[in-house]
């Protein structure tokens, strides 16, 4: 009984501050301290959410944004992971690729937006390209480091116990690098949203960012705020997924 109350507390407390802010915001909008054209009340944001949902517009914007995020993340994440893997494991790959990757990494990928628009237009390709590019480097660096700095004494032990090649990799090296790899994944999820928001805001004709920019044209403050809230929710969602992965894959560390 007591532990149940404790458990409930643990789930409720983190939401306390967002709830208070929401209630305060509603209250001050209601008494007129916050004017509608500066910041619309939560209720009007909510009602515009319902309106856009029933028209199907919200769903199409959200799904296109999520698709871009996911596809870009997968492409960039897989490429970054593979490069990190090969450069971490094979000396020759390290010598061949690492310097070039480090040079590319230091270019802010958002600076490429003008170039990317000229290359790919403002279609899906340009957003996915930018997201993939942004996600690639955090995953690469953390995978590379994770693999390079696996405890050498454990590798020696594995060899002394007859492990080699793929067995050594899957039993010792990859699990040893896993916590570092997941740090990269978590970091790159943040980069993924950031890149997508910027790309969609600057140039797009669909997606959450476009919805916000479009609403600006018509001074629809409630829709703009709705877009921001959506980004916050999706950001939280990807964090939850990352935490879940950590809990599953690093269970031994808990």
């Amino acid at each position, binding site marked *: 009984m007591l532990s149940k109350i404790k458990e409930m507390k643990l789930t409720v407390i983190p939401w306390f501050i967002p709830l208070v802010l929401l209630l305060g915001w509603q209250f001050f909008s209601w008494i007129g301290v916050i004017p509608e054209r500066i910041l619309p009340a939560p209720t009007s944001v909510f009602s515009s959410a319902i309106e856009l949902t029933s028209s199907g517009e919200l769903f199409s914007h959200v799904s296109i944004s999520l698709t871009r995020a996911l596809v870009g993340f997968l492409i960039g994440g897989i490429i970054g992971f593979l490069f990190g893997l090969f450069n971490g494991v094979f000396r020759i790959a390290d010598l061949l690729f690492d310097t070039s990757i480090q040079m590319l990494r230091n270019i802010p990928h958002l600076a490429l937006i003008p170039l990317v628009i000229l290359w790919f237009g403002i279609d899906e390709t340009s957003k996915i390209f930018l997201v993939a590019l942004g996600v690639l480097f955090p995953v690469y660096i953390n995978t590379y480091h994770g693999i390079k700095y696996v405890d050498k004494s454990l590798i020696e032990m594995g060899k*002394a116990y007859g492990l080699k090649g793929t067995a050594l990799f899957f039993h010792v090296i990859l699990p040893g690098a896993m916590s570092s790899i997941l740090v990269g994944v978590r970091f790159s999820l943040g980069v993924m949203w950031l890149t997508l928001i910027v790309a969609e805001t600057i140039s797009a004709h669909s997606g959450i960012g476009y919805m916000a920019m479009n609403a600006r044209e018509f001074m629809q403050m409630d829709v703009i705020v709705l877009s921001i809230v959506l980004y916050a929710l999706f950001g939280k969602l990807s964090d939850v997924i990352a935490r879940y992965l950590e809990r599953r894959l690093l269970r031994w560390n808990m």
Partner: protein
Amino acid sequence: MEYVMERKKLEDDVSVLSDQKNHIVLKSLVKQYGDRTVLQGLDLEVKKGEFIAIVGKSGCGKSTLLRLIAGLEEMNSGEIRINDKPLKQLNEHARIMFQDGRLLPWKRVIDNVCLGLPKHSRQKAKIVLTRVGLAERMKEFPSKLSGGQKQRVALARALVHDPSLLLLDEPLGALDALTRMEMQGLIESLWQNNSFTSILVTHDVEEAVALADRVILIEDGKIKLNQPIHLPRPRQRTHPAFAMHLEEILEQIMHQNQRKDYVMQDIKSISP
């Protein structure tokens, strides 16, 4: 009297010495790290089933010697023969147990023991874990175990391969005194019930005298003392003969120390 009480194995060693095959033969072994010579022309023969303890000050090369026998490092010159065949790479007959255990933290106890074994050997791993008294903890992760328990798992992991040679690299160095005594008893009984050869590297001379058929003292990269211990097992630490051996070996270690101290004093008195 003392001789009668010897273990049968040791008796065999003495009476049929010429027939007994040497398990390990080291010939003028040299190992250098850069400019530093760690082992210089070391010779040693170890018989099948023998329990050898190697003692010496830290940095004397005793761990290096063990790693050479395990095939984890290459020597600069000399020869290592295992069962009369030269050792080229990793010593496949040997399993080594390290001071820091080196369990894989992401594998449960049972999976750590099964490391490098085919899938169907789980049952065998369970049996070995029972022998070291950890069968109930086999589903736990190593982080949940105490230092002594971790070393038990490491011991089980080494023994599950039925090695003909068990190499122990200061395996009990990090444990508290009581746990260490307990583990010494465990290692001794496992060694008595299985027919493996054992080489223990330790800085604890008492541990060496308690466990080994022969205590080897390494100094300046060479064997300085090769002392057989003819005492009945399990050995009583209070036994006068035990104390005698202990004192003798300690004296050999300290003696060298004193001489060096004198040299240091001389140098000091010469320099202004």
